[in-house]
């Protein structure tokens, strides 16, 4: 006798006991909720359904990351679209399917760098009409205290004056809470360079806002 027990993300088959035999639990991946690894394999084989499933699973995180780094909803959507397009087009270059999420985020950060460089060029030409409609304070959760909101406002203003590569490194460290080696991986630079960029940003930010170190050193 077989009993299907649905849990979140997986289906558990319970083999019913035959005379004298003990029951055995067999965990199988549900076809309705494949893992990233399974999706990555299927995308590699050209499965377009798997592409959409992968997209829907990660789009919120990618857009959210871009929103926090760029402070602009339009640019964040642009970056997210470009990131997924690049990811799907260069899927064959992905060596380790188990790290597909980190790889996607690395592509997104790369696109953010490009977006900042483009903005700077447009600003020099006087053609930048973008409006930063999503400062950190605007992204604050509804239950955030007024004191924290005020600090987020101050942080926004301080980060505006920091060069983009330094700002991105600082935010990956202190806003996203990534370890330094992951920050370096996302920024596609050495650990020494990341530390230098973070220190540069911290010189500006630290004058106005005090941020406790993430506890994962």
């Amino acid at each position, binding site marked *: 006798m077989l009993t299907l027990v649905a849990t979140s993300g997986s289906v558990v088959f319970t083999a019913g006991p035959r005379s004298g035999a003990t029951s055995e639990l067999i965990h199988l991946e549900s076809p309705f909720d494949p893992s990233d690894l399974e999706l990555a394999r299927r995308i590699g084989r050209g499965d*377009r359904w798997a*592409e959409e499933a992968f997209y829907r699973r990660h789009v919120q995180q990618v857009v959210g990351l871009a929103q926090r780094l760029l402070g602009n909803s339009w640019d964040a959507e642009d970056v997210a*679209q470009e990131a997924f397009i690049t990811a799907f087009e260069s899927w064959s270059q992905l060596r380790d399917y188990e790290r597909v999420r980190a790889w996607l985020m690395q592509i997104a950060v790369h696109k953010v760098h490009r977006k900042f460089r483009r903005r700077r060029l447009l600003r020099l030409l006087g053609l930048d009409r973008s409006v930063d409609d999503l400062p950190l304070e605007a992204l604050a959760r509804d239950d955030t205290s*007024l004191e924290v909101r005020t600090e987020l406002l101050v942080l926004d203003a301080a980060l505006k004056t920091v060069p983009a590569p330094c700002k991105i490194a600082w935010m990956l460290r202190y806003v996203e809470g990534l370890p330094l080696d992951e920050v370096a991986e996302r920024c596609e630079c050495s650990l020494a360079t990341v530390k230098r960029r973070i220190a540069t940003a911290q010189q500006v930010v630290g004058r106005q806002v005090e941020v406790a170190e993430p506890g994962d050193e």
Partner: protein
Amino acid sequence: MNKLQAPIGRHLAERVDENAVQRIWSGVRARRQGSLFVRRRGVPVWGWALLASLALLLLGIGGFRYAHAPSPRVEANGPLTLRAGAALSLLGGARASSDDLSDGSTIRLDAGSQLEVLENTSKTFVSALRRGRGSFSVQPGGPRRWTIEAGLLTVEVVGTRFSVTRRETAVVVAVEHGVVLVRSELITDHVQRLTAGQELSVQLPSSLPLPGPSAVAPAERSDSTEKAPELGPNAGPPGVAASLPAVASTPGVGESSVEELLTGANELRKRGDVRGAEASLRRALNEHPSGPQTALVAFTLGKLLLDSAGRPADAALAFQRCLAAAPPSALAEDALFRLAQAQSRAGDAPGASASARRYQGLYPSGRHAADVNQWLLER
């Protein structure tokens, strides 16, 4: 300085709705299906190539102009001054004025407007728009937190362009660029965030009757000062009697609600009748010595006496009365900070230090922690 705990992202939410998810996917799918020139914003690739060529041509001119653009100074130390070096205290007058400040900020006042500087340090710049209209262009990235008091509300900014207009029955805040926080007891949740292009008008409710001049007796000091009720844990230093002078009641006038008296006091203050506003608030405290509104009335009286009447010693008593009435935590924090301010301005250095240290202990990450810490360091 307040402390944010990393990862700061714990305080943030992702603002991605289903429309955006669909929009992005449409673009991705179109590209995957071979439409190489589809871009969400509709700028084709050849357009970017043309733009790049134009950029190379204009970059020389743009770079030259950029290099010669005046860069505003950002004053890092000491109080703000006018660009020419004169101190800031009272701005405005019969004529319209425009003042450039030492940090690159600008204050423009319409004719007949008046802006009084209340506090001016390396960390904060607090001013009060007494009347008229002011347009403020606050230098972004500066070290100071700007606060503009405008009667019914307070505007807090960090680098932005906005205007505040103080009218007879309303105060209007309009933001041109950046973000401001507007705080007022008269708006929902007591705070509103305005971004570029947004405007907020805070009005006095017109339905409530205003007390006429005959209904409010002028504030008089009685020989027998009433003792304050027993001070609670949030009150000022022990041993200090928080006594407020009693107000002679006017015979024949019926008791009014706290809301009516509070609203009336605000209206009188807007008209410049500070003594009338004070009398109205004192009457509210006399007629309603305890209740949910007592702390708010006492706090409002303290603000009036400190900011408008120039009587910091009496203001300190009012703030102590507020704290004794066990106010909500946000009001208690502000009242303790204002108490320290009032005691400092009244020359009560030991009292001010004690209040400041009490604030430091109770609100180490509070709204005014940076100012309190700085003030204690300088003493």
